[in-house]
């Protein structure tokens, strides 16, 4: 099966997707390896750092992806389709959980555990830690546009396509997200400059 081909950085290679459509497990694995961290990150930040829920949602997303991949006809970008599945799964899970949660429970913010490397310097780690707490505390509708923008580097139009929003609404939500981050973390300006110089 033709699944050993190179996958492009921007999207999944067509031949890998075609191989997945024929049930090639190795191709599924490749697709999973390529997108697992980004899907998991979106879910993790969406659920305020709750790793167990993020893992469940990530599994659901990939199972849905593999069982429905035959329906993917290439009209939209593969990533648009994947992140639509991801955000829909997050929203569904959020709705399910809300029914069982007391008021106030859902505002609890855990700190997402993220990958760290020896290259991470003190200033970077400090800024990154503060940013992830602040993003986890954003309202879900603001959080999700920030995640698609900064993990996926999607354009406003692409984010709009994933979330069924107009470009203007995406712009307005990002505006609000940026302002909240700046107001909460304005005191980290000096550390940010150091972190940017280090990177």
């Amino acid at each position, binding site marked *: 099966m033709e699944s050993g081909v190179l996958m492009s950085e921007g999207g999944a290679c067509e031949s890998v997707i075609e191989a997945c459509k024929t049930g090639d497990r190795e191709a599924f694995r490749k697709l999973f390896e390529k997108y697992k961290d980004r899907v998991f990150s979106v879910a993790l930040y969406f659920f305020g750092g709750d790793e167990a829920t993020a893992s469940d949602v990530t599994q659901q997303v990939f199972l849905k992806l593999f069982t429905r991949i035959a329906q993917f006809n290439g009209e939209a970008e593969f990533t648009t389709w994947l992140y639509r599945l991801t955000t829909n799964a997050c929203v569904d899970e959020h709705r399910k959980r809300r029914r069982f949660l007391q008021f106030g429970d859902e505002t609890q913010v855990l700190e997402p555990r993220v990958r760290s490397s020896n290259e991470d310097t003190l200033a970077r780690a400090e800024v990154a830690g503060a940013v992830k707490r602040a993003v986890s505390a954003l309202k879900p509708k603001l959080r999700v546009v920030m995640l698609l*923008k900064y993990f996926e580097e999607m354009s406003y139009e692409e984010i709009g396509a994933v979330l069924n929003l107009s470009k203007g609404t995406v712009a*307005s939500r990002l505006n609000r997200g940026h302002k909240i*981050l700046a107001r909460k973390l304005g005191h980290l*300006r000096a550390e940010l400059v150091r972190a940017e110089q280090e990177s």
Partner: protein
Amino acid sequence: MFTKHYKKELSAYAHGELTAEETEHVAAHVRACAACRAEFEEIRLGVRLAECLPEAAAPESLWEGIEASLTKDSAHAQQRHSQIQTHGQTQLEATRSQLSTRSQQSKRFRRARTILFPGAASIFSSNRRAFAAACVVACAVAVAVGAWLYVRATRPSWEVARIEGTPRIASDRIGERGRLGVGEWLETDDASRAEISVANIGAVEVEPNTRVRLIETRLTEHRLELARGTLHARIWAPPRLFFVNTPSAVAADLGCAYTLEVDDAGRSLLHVTAGYVALDAGERESIVPAGAACLTKPGTGPGTPFFEDASEEFVGALARLDFDGDRASLERVLKGARARDTLTLWHLLSRVGADERARVYERLAALAPPPEGVTREGIVRLDRAMLDAWKDQLEDRWIDGGIPAVRKMWRKLWN
């Protein structure tokens, strides 16, 4: 009098999501409107912070769960299809029988070949090995070339248009157009000129005998290196988004148009024609408004900015003070300073010793009395807030020459 503020468009502006026309309107407005400028600084800080958002790693065990579910599903599917497979068994047997006949024919052909051409088997065999090795090498080369082409095609780059002559990118001549990738040099000889499109935020015209490299291009930073030669930059982006590194300082665009020249010794001359440019080297910074210029020198960094209509004697004395450490030249600079040269005197405050600073203060205060709350003692001890307050007041004088009366009135009304 009413004007349109652009507060809702500022994130899209920072991300380069607006059209060129919209970008130009917002850039002009942000330069003139203090409220939108402050709001934009806030948005930009938010963008820079969000760029630090770390990606999380999915747990290793995730795939096992997914694979288990997939296996369960495929077991069900196999059960459903087992009947169909039984029906297909007869056809499969027939196919096997055909294959077996072909295999026997093939064996017969190999035996005949050995009898007719005794050495051929080993030749064919060694040729097969050589062919297989050649295939492996060809595949490896194809993959390497493909990967190289892919990396090259996906690397961020800017468009370069030839104006005249034969500009080169990475030593290759470009036709009418080319792409300057991150890390690549654009070089012009004495008969060549080119124009670089700086992402969607401006353009840089490259003069003959110039060597310039693209260092970085991303949402919050676009950076060139000018090793030698001359470039003219026209930028309509938010402040501090476009930078040019030179051997002796970094030119940071603050919304402007300017010419920057670098000679073979690494010295540079900046001449600003619109807006402002900041020249930075370590902790030393020179703010250069339209109509002013500034020299820089390796090891010293940016000198003190001066207006281009200043006298030769004034500029010469300033250069000796900045780069030769000739303290006697300070007297000539103070004596020759006009009302507009408060630009030079304000910069000198933080570059001379405490005793000399008091003399500079006296001359500056005589030309432009400090605002309320700014004291001689505060300035002598380099109180940052007082220096900034005085600069804010002086800035109107520095840019007045380039701003029509109507715009000045507009600035007063809305700032």
